[in-house]
Every structure is written in structure tokens, then in C-alpha cells.
């Protein structure tokens, strides 16, 4: 958790801004070197903190961003608008809006006159162009404000010169400078005069928090109108000359390879098809429409070689995990000690966004241009250059608005593939994965188990040990480089990447005596990646269920128990708020129950209270091609992110996180059988749908606490999943140990064939119109 004194000093500090040599006013900023000194944060934590409490993943990302962050700049245009190219990916989390708010605040310019675009890959930014770990607002909060404040200072100076009045006689409001004598000049009029022919360094002060008029106020998204009119453009909506649709015929098992193709010429002659080429991931087709590409993919007769997970199924992976589990170290136990010992299983889960993997590539002999939603564009640029045999400087990577990410877009799978296909065909391509490909060959959140053993005696918890064992998570998207670059400064030397991430993100918020939480990993044969909130949903769900069990053993109420054992006042405050708003303990009919849980991470903390209905009339609802089951009827969330830049955006993130948590607890998972996943559609992979959505949902944003923004994008997933699991346990009287709870039930769908790899498009759309 952040240090409060540190935050209060911040407002009075002076920061270094830059006015760059440019024809119109262009202001930039770098971070103060003492900004993220993690040792200070450690001092605020009272007793025996774990590594995650001293320096969590976000501190590391922020520290890594320090050396080059100064290159972030705001431009003021002669039409009175300001623009800013954010070196991050917008995938729905609302960071273009919150960034615009920071500029509006310091520049005194209305929000609708600020344009935030996404920066192309900028290799000179090194580690500062990675969107992950809910880190964006934390690492850009100061630099964006400093740049905007620098611009405002220049506008004031230009106005002072024009008016012949001192700067101290001037004020700014809504894009206009006004003098004490009543003279005015708009920013539009000053944009050129305020520009500089040489690059200057200036010292600026930021607005004190008490003067905030934009930061901390609920604002609608700046891209909302584009979204609801269909004008918002995603990668596949761009018109790049010559870039025709392309798809890939993929193998029937995970990462299978092409041995031979029997009918290349025949498929090349199909209607609309222009090219067919064998590439490293399958057989690529290019044509006039995606519909014709789907037909061509289905027509290809390919002999496939084995994949990287041949023969593997849920049961074999579970067995492998069991064998790799690190031993528990049970301490000597006093008489009357009771133990809870339980192992939870979390099958593979899908992190597909609604927009499937996709990218546009135009590869020429001496250069390449790529468009896609990329959270690690610099890594993408380097990988593409390597694969094409081009210098990095010959590869241009444009970051496009993304249709969701949830961890997927940390990787550049589609961009790399598009570049390879474009090179093989010698033509530009608009490459898109079919939904079936996205589910079956796309990255997954790896299967894991969590063994927990806790001991307690006479109302005290003496020990808490957790051994998390997981199929390896791939972090080869740039986060790895961040860790390498900062490794020397970390208090957890000698750990591998994934272990480092685990230790830096997992904290036990309770006073549970001797606590150890360890990770071990197996098997590299799967395409994996982190899913929204990395390890936390599983690790914390297991922990919160055990908390409920210990509370029950002690005869204590789950809410009271948590209150008594929590270490941190902010955590207690959100727990209290959720309990109060959700009327914790109210009388409920048999078969229904409340559950409550919380999750601290990224200098933030969220508590979620849910009510669940497990009565037969609810679980027995039938909806075609759907999973109904227990329904969460109500969810209440209280969240403290230190300072919510945009509380309305934060609410949205919490709501989305709660939907994810409900799905992870109750309905959504992938079933692995014979080296392939059975799911291939949204009617197979049961993410939360309207019929699973709680009719009552409330998010309460706590007033500012630390005064500095913490992470928010992923915070609610773990607390919601855990709260739903705890509610289910209380409603049914059985502790669930596999998630989602329906994973081992008979499949709720008929698996689609793996050859051909994608299903035909139906033709009955008119009959189903409503």
C-alpha cells in the first residue's frame, strides 16, 4: 500500500518540464528521479510484510519506466485543441479517457478539446511502452500532468508578453487566458507564440489536489460516441490498400504442423481466393472476403504432424501438477491445533477477447508496416524484424484500438503471423483468426492447482501455507525484459520470471502467523499467457474459501473473522463498506446465501459481497445452448484505488471484473482432450451472459486515501470469484474444490469437429430474426 506522507508532499514538489523545439507549442516531461522510491512504501507497512507488500509488480513496472518516461509530450494546436499520443494500448480499460482528464486538469482545457491517440511502437521508450499489470495510470499519472502543466506555463508566458502584464496577474480557464485587467486570449491564439525554437527546461508545479476540478470526477468515455455509432475503428475495420482478408487453416491438435497439402491448386482456384501458402502455423489463404477464406480453409486437405501437447487431457495435466507440487513444511503443532488441508483445481480458461486475434501487415522487400492492437508494440516490432530478416528501423508498428484484451494482446501472435503471411504471398494481408481458432489454438490461462494447509488453535491462525502449481505461464511479451532490467533492485533475487511475478503479486492480507506462498510450474507445451489478474483469481479464491472454513471451525462469522484478522486499515474499510451496502447477515431463504471476500493488489483493494441463488427453480432454468446453474442475484463492490482519476471508469472496470469472477467460479473453462481443446464457440465457452448477470449491482468508490492512483483494471476479478465461491459454499453446505463448479459435469455442448478446423457459416439467419 502506498505511503501517505509521500503523497502529500508531492503537490508542493517542483517537476522538470520540457518545451520542445517545434512550430506549435509542444511540452514534454520526465519523471522526478525520486518518484517511485519503493523503500518509502515499505516503511508504511507495520509488521513483517511479504515481498508483494514492499514492492509489488506495479512498483517494478513503474521503476522500469523511469529512465525514458520523459519523452511523453502534449501538443497544442492552432485550433485550440491539444493532442497526446499515449504510449499504451487502449483495449477497453478507459485509459485514453483518464489520460485526457489529466491533461484537462493541468491545462485548464475542456475534455472534449483533447485528443488522445495511441503511439506507434517507439523503440527508444524501452520498457515504457508496455500495457500490463494495471499499471498505466500509476506510471503515467505524473508525467502526463507535468507535460500539460508545462504547456500551460508557456501559454501563460506568451499571454503575459502579449498583454504586457505579469504572469501572476493571469488566470486560465476552459482554454482561455484572462488578465487582471480583463484582457483575454484563447489557447488557439497563443499556440504558435507559445512554441519554442529551441528545447527548454522549465520547473513547474502541479495543481494541488484540493483544486482538482477534473481528476476524481466521474466522466464518460471520450470514445463513447464513436463506439455507439459504429465509427470506432478496430484493426479489421481499417482500409489498407491491397490488404485483402486472410485466414489460416490450423491443425487439429495444439500447435500441430503441416506435413503436406493435397489440393493447393484446387483451393487457389476457388471463388474469390487469390493466394494459398504454407506458413509456420498452418496453411494461409487470402481472398476477396473472409467468407470465401472460411470456405477455402474448410476445403483444404492437409496432412498434419503432431502438436506440442499430443495426447494430453485434463486428467494427465492434473496428474503432472500433482507430482510437481512443492512440499508443505508443517510446523510443530501445539496440542489442540486444528488443520485445514485442501487442494483446489483450476482448469484451463480462455482469455479470448470478443475481437479475435487479428492484424494487418504490408511486407515489402526492404520494409514492413503492421497494424494491430498491441500491448507490447516494441517487442512486436523486434520479433517481426527478426522473423522477416529486416532491421528494426525498417518495421513500422501502429497500435490500433483493441476489442478487449484480458492478457491476450500482451502477445503479438497475429501480428507476427500476418507479417509472415504477407511476406510469403508478397502482398498486404488483413489476417483474422476464426473464433474456433481463437479458442482452440489461442493462448489460455494455464491449468493450476492450489494446495492450502492452515493451522489454528485457540482462535489464532498459526500458519498458512499455499503451494500453487501451474502449467507454465508465458511471459515472453516484454514483461520478462522488465524483470531482467530491474532484477538487481528486487528483494526476491534468484527467482525465475514467473516466480518473481508470483511473489510480487501475491499477498496474504491477513495476520495468519507463518505464511508461505510458493509457485512451481510444469510443461511448456501449451500456448499460455496471463489472464486478467494473472495468478490472483485462483490463488485468492482458494485462500478466501479456506478463510471461510477456518472461520466456521472457530464458530465465527466470515465477515467478522476477516475484520479481526486483516492487517490493513484500507482493506478493513472496503470490507466494512461492502458489508454495510450489501446488508451482510440479512436473513435469506434456504438454498441462497451471501459471500464476502476481498483482494489487495496494485496499491489498491476491493471487497465484493454477493448473493447467490442455488435453489432448484433457479439452477434448473433451461436456456438453449447455455449454462444456467446457480445465479448470482446481487453483487456489491467497494473499491479503494488510492485516488480514482475517473470514478465512472473505475466502476466500469469493477463491473467487468465481477462478470469475469462470476464466470470463473461458476461456468467458464476449457476442456482438454487428446491434445486439443473441445470448446470452439461462445456457446461452448460459457463466459457470463445476460441470464447469469446479477439484476442488482452496485459499486462504491471510496474517497481518495493515498492521494495517488493505484491499479484498477483487474482488481475485482479475484475478489468477485472468491466471493461467489464462498457464497456457493454457504448456500449448498459443500466446499467447491474445482473451478468453475460445473467443469467435471457432463459437457453442456456437442464439440465441433477439429477437421476442418472451422465451422461452416449457417444460412438460417432470416428464420431466426426477431
Amino acid at each position, binding site marked *: 500500500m502506498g505511503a501517505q506522507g509521500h503523497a502529500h508532499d508531492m503537490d508542493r514538489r517542483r517537476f522538470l518540464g520540457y518545451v520542445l523545439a517545434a512550430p506549435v507549442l509542444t511540452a514534454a516531461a520526465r519523471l522526478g528521479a525520486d518518484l517511485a522510491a519503493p523503500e518509502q512504501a515499505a516503511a508504511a507497512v507495520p509488521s513483517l510484510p511479504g515481498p508483494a507488500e514492499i514492492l509489488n509488480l506495479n512498483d517494478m513496472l513503474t521503476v522500469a519506466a523511469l529512465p525514458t518516461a520523459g519523452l511523453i509530450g502534449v501538443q497544442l494546436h492552432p485550433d485550440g485543441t491539444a493532442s497526446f499520443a499515449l504510449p499504451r494500448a487502449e483495449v477497453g480499460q478507459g485509459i485514453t479517457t483518464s489520460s485526457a482528464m489529466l491533461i484537462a486538469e493541468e491545462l485548464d482545457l475542456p475534455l472534449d478539446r483533447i485528443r488522445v491517440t495511441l503511439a506507434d511502437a517507439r523503440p527508444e521508450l524501452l520498457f515504457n511502452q508496455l500495457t500490463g499489470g494495471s499499471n498505466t495510470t500509476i506510471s503515467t499519472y505524473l508525467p502526463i500532468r507535468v507535460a500539460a502543466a508545462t504547456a500551460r506555463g508557456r501559454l501563460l508566458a506568451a499571454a503575459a508578453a502579449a498583454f504586457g502584464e505579469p504572469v501572476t496577474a493571469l488566470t486560465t480557464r476552459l482554454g482561455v487566458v484572462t488578465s487582471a485587467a480583463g484582457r483575454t486570449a484563447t489557447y488557439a491564439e497563443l499556440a504558435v507564440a507559445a512554441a519554442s525554437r529551441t528545447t527548454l527546461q522549465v520547473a513547474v508545479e502541479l495543481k494541488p489536489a484540493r483544486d482538482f476540478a477534473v481528476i476524481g470526477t466521474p466522466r464518460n468515455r471520450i470514445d*463513447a460516441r464513436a463506439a*455507439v455509432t459504429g465509427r470506432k475503428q478496430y484493426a479489421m475495420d481499417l482500409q489498407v490498400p491491397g490488404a485483402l482478408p486472410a485466414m489460416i487453416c490450423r491443425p487439429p491438435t495444439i500447435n500441430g504442423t503441416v506435413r503436406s497439402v493435397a489440393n493447393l491448386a484446387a483451393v487457389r482456384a476457388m471463388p474469390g481466393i487469390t493466394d494459398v501458402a504454407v506458413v509456420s502455423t498452418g496453411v494461409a489463404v487470402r481472398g476477396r472476403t473472409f*467468407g470465401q477464406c472460411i470456405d477455402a480453409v474448410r476445403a483444404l486437405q492437409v496432412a498434419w504432424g503432431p502438436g506440442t501437447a499430443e495426447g494430453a487431457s485434463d486428467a494427465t495435466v492434473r496428474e503432472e501438477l500433482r507430482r510437481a507440487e512443492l512440499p508443505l513444511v508443517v510446523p510443530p503443532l501445539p496440542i489442540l491445533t486444528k488443520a485445514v488441508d485442501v487442494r483446489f483445481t483450476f482448469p484451463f480458461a480462455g482469455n479470448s*477477447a470478443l475481437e479475435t486475434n487479428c492484424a494487418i501487415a504490408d511486407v515489402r522487400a526492404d520494409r514492413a508496416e503492421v497494424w494491430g492492437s498491441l500491448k507490447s508494440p516494441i517487442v512486436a516490432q523486434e520479433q517481426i524484424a527478426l522473423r522477416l530478416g529486416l532491421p528494426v528501423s525498417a518495421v513500422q508498428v501502429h497500435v490500433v484500438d483493441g476489442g478487449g484484451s484480458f492478457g491476450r494482446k500482451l502477445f503479438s501472435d497475429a501480428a507476427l503471423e500476418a507479417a509472415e503471411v504477407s511476406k510469403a504471398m508478397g502482398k498486404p494481408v488483413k489476417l483474422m483468426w476464426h473464433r474456433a481458432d481463437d479458442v482452440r489454438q489461442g493462448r489460455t490461462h494455464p491449468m493450476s492447482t492450489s494446495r492450502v494447509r492452515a493451522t489454528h488453535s485457540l482462535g489464532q491462525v498459526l500458519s498458512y501455507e499455499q503451494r500453487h502449481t501451474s502449467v507454465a505461464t508465458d511471459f515472453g511479451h516484454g514483461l520478462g525484459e522488465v524483470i531482467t532490467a530491474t532484477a538487481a533492485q528486487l528483494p526476491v533475487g534468484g527467482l525465475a520470471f514467473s516466480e518473481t511475478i508470483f511473489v510480487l503479486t501475491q499477498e496474504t492480507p491477513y495476520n495468519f502467523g507463518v505464511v508461505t506462498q510458493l509457485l512451481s510450474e510444469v510443461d511448456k507445451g501449451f500456448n499460455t499467457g496471463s489472464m486478467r489478474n494473472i495468478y490472483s483469481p485462483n490463488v485468492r479464491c482458494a485462500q478466501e474459501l479456506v478463510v471461510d472454513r477456518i472461520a466456521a471451525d472457530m464458530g465465527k462469522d466470515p465477515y467478522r473473522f476477516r475484520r479481526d484478522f486483516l492487517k490493513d486499515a484500507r482493506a478493513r474499510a472496503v470490507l466494512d463498506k461492502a458489508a454495510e451496502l450489501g446488508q451482510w447477515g440479512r436473513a435469506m431463504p434456504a438454498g441462497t446465501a451471501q459471500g464476502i471476500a476481498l483482494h489487495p493488489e496494485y496499491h489498491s483493494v476491493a471487497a465484493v459481497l454477493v448473493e447467490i441463488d442455488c435453489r432448484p427453480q433457479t439452477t434448473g432454468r433451461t436456456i438453449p445452448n447455455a449454462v444456467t446453474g446457480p445465479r448470482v442475484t446481487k453483487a456489491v463492490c467497494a473499491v479503494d484505488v488510492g485516488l480514482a482519476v475517473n470514478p465512472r471508469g473505475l466502476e466500469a472496470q469493477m463491473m*467487468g471484473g465481477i462478470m469475469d469472477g462470476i464466470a470463473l467460479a461458476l461456468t467458464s473453462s476449457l476442456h482438454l482432450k487428446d491434445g486439443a481443446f473441445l470448446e470452439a464457440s461462445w456457446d461452448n465457452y460459457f463466459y457470463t451472459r445476460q441470464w447469469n448477470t446479477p439484476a442488482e449491482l452496485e459499486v462504491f468508490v471510496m474517497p481518495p486515501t493515498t492521494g495517488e492512483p493505484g491499479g484498477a483494471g483487474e482488481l475485482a476479478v479475484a475478489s468477485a470469484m472468491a466471493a461467489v465461491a464462498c457464497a456457493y459454499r454457504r448456500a449448498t453446505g459443500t466446499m467447491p474444490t474445482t473451478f468453475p463448479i460445473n467443469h467435471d459435469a457432463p459437457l453442456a455442448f456437442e464439440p465441433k469437429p477439429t477437421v476442418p478446423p472451422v465451422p461452416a457459416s449457417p444460412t438460417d439467419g432470416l428464420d431466426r430474426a426477431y
Partner: protein
Amino acid sequence: MPQHTFRLNGEEVTVDIEDDVRLLWVLRDVLGVTGPKYGCGIGVCQACTSHINGKAFNPCSVRVADLGPDDEVTTIEGLPATVGRELHPMQEAWLEHDVAQCGYCQPGQIMAAVAKVRQARAAGHEIGDADLDEIRNICRCGTYFRIREAIRAAATRF
């Protein structure tokens, strides 16, 4: 190559393309109308939801040859014009409730919502929880709750 004529957002269009190409690709790849999104291509995700003669449908699941010259296709781009305004009241409600996150599903959500309200009205009742539970559109960002609020707010405005 066969020619197909239908009405799109108030205007007659004619395209040269094979009979069995699904309408979604005719809209997106041939005509450059990109409001309807791809999310599955098999009539499941509902991201492509548009209207045909005022009813919600999935263009990914209709052959272009199955449209006639009198069939009126409305995509999100043409929705405001159906009420003669700059924005349809459903879109306004979407803005008021700040529904969109990534936004990818939202054109389809809005087109489905308009049809769902009309369907409830035709059945003689105001839209309620049971109707809202029937909406199949996926939102992987989890905006379901705000969608419900926005639909309720807009239901009486058109």
C-alpha cells in the same frame, strides 16, 4: 459473377459476388460498412447484429442471394436515420450510462436492444428482467449491467 440488389441504410445497393457469400462479408469486405462486427461467424456471439426489415438478425448467417431488392438492411450506421435523428434514443441511453468499454460488441448490442424493446412492446408488455435475460449478445468486457440499465431507460423514448 451474379449481381445482388438490396436496400442498405435507406439506399439501393448492387454487388457482384457469389450467391453464398454471407451478408456480413458483403457489408464489411465489399461495401466497407464496418459497424457490424465479427465475433464468431456462426450466429452465436451476436456482434454482427443488424436489422432486416426492422427485425434483428445476424448477417453472418444469411446468404446474400437470400435477400431481395425490397429487403431493407439497417446497420448501426443507419439506425439514427430510422428515427430521423442524429442519434437513436437507444444510442443516447448508451452514452448517458457510459456503457461501452472496448466497444467491440456495442453496435450489435444496440441493434439487439432496439429489436428487443419492439418485441416486448408487440407482445403487449414493457421490457423486463425476463426479456433482458433473453439477450444472447456476448460482452467479454462484462458491460451487461449497464446494458440493462440503458435499455430500460431508452424503452419509453421511442
